[in-house]
């Protein structure tokens, strides 16, 4: 099954990128889920879409060759900072920031797309992922950014964990909670932007939350949940990419369906287990 992936360059890029994404999306996703910010990822992915549409527009109408990856990253990071500002404005209704940013992202995307007079299949691959969309240079960019994200998470793991568990306690103990939170949001934006090539903008948040939801059924502790989420994430990406390629489906769809299958299986197994022990 893997033979084609190892033989053809473009598939190899896709597979390696997929393995990277399968690691960092659930890694950051663990923090997103325990902080109850799952919808934040959705809002940011729609802003990323606007960034991609903008990049494609530049490419088509002005022949500017900026990879939509970078315009996507720029919009996503900008959107993440905007969400933080909005959460500050509506202190009592912080979740309002999410529909505001989400609809803003879709609105902008539609306008960019129609200015460019409609795009081709390229946009479709950004929405749902593609097995053939990762160029060599995309791969290097994604690997570089992912390396940066992993280093930051390892360095700030204890602070991110402490903040997630009890924000008030973190503040009292003297941590710079606002700065750590901002760092976290920007990391989220970066992960979403670099994941979209594989799973697609509309399904990025699934890869950040579904493996975590599955591992939550088993994990006793936080670190254990992080490791287990990554295992589930990798299984979903690898099986999803291979089946997507052989069945000619966009990999976003197959990755999400594998994730959901793993989730259902986890729920069934953990229920059986708790029955057996009680």
């Amino acid at each position: 099954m893997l033979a084609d992936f190892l033989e053809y360059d473009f598939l190899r890029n896709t597979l390696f990128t997929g393995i990277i994404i399968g690691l960092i999306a659930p890694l950051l996703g663990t923090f997103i889920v325990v902080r109850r910010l799952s919808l934040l990822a959705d809002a940011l992915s729609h802003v990323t879409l606007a960034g991609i549409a903008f990049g494609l527009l530049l490419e088509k109408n002005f022949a500017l060759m900026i990879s939509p990856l970078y315009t996507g990253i720029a919009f996503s990071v900008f959107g993440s900072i905007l969400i933080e500002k909005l959460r500050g404005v509506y202190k009592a209704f912080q979740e309002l920031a999410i529909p505001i940013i989400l609809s803003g992202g879709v609105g902008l995307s539609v306008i960019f797309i129609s200015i460019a007079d409609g795009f081709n299949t390229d946009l479709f691959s950004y929405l749902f992922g593609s097995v053939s969309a990762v160029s060599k240079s995309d791969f290097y960019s994604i690997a570089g950014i992912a390396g940066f994200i992993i280093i930051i998470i390892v360095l700030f793991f204890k602070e991110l964990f402490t903040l997630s568990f009890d924000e008030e306690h973190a503040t009292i103990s003297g941590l710079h909670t606002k700065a750590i939170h901002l760092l976290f949001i920007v990391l989220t934006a970066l992960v979403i932007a670099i994941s979209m090539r594989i799973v697609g903008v509309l399904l990025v948040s699934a890869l950040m939350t579904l493996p975590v939801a599955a591992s939550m059924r088993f994990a006793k502790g936080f670190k254990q949940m992080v490791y287990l989420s990554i295992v589930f994430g990798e299984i979903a990406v690898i099986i999803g990419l291979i089946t997507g390629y052989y069945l000619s489906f966009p990999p976003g769809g197959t990755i999400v369906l594998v994730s959901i299958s793993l989730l259902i299986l986890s729920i069934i197994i953990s229920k059986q287990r708790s029955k057996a022990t009680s």
Partner: protein
Amino acid sequence: MSEAIISMKNISFSYENKQILDHINFSVSKGSFMGLVGPNGGGKTTLIKLILGLQKADAGSIQLFGQPIEKFNNWHKIGFVSQKANAFNKGFPATVYEVVSMGLTAKVGYLKFFQKKHKEKIKEAINQVGMKAYTHENIGNLSGGQQQRIFIARSLVNDPELLILDEPTVGVDNENVQRFYDLLDNLNRNKGITMLMITHDTGTIAEQATEIACLNKTLHFHGKPEAYKRISNEEWSHIYGHNIHLITHDH
């Protein structure tokens, strides 16, 4: 008189035009066990938030360990166990060890990792609160009283000199409340940790604390338990307002 760890002078605080605290003079001396009682909305939690620097007073001054609060930066000397510890997200996947380790996050510092001595410290704190057997259990699976012990351990890893507790016995069953008080008593007497504890339990606190304060917008009482026990019913109804007076008569 022994050294004051907390000293508040003429503190006033209002929230949305409502006066919560009115010219409070309050102090906690080193080694004491201070019980803070008073009706709901009387400003007990606000007082603690001011001490912890989570809110700023409108007027007056606060000194912590002899330093003005504005300049104070030894926050690791102060441990805090909040009322919310009871209402934390029960589904949060963290082991007892992981929760206690969070007490050290700020002390270890940015860009640094836990070392062997930190890990020993974490185990020691868990042992001190009598929860060693649960080290690798999920915090959500423990009872309310056990969870509060873990939150105390989270403070103990920093070798605090002052422990502030906001109604720590809410949601703890009666049998375990006494064991919880024994733990606090032990930390106070044998470790010399100064205690400041908010409680609704106006009776039991008189047996545990070495000093008691009654707060309802102003400080109505600040003294020894012996004097506290002599507060008459009329004075109580004055402190708590008339509603409470009626309820006590209904019993």
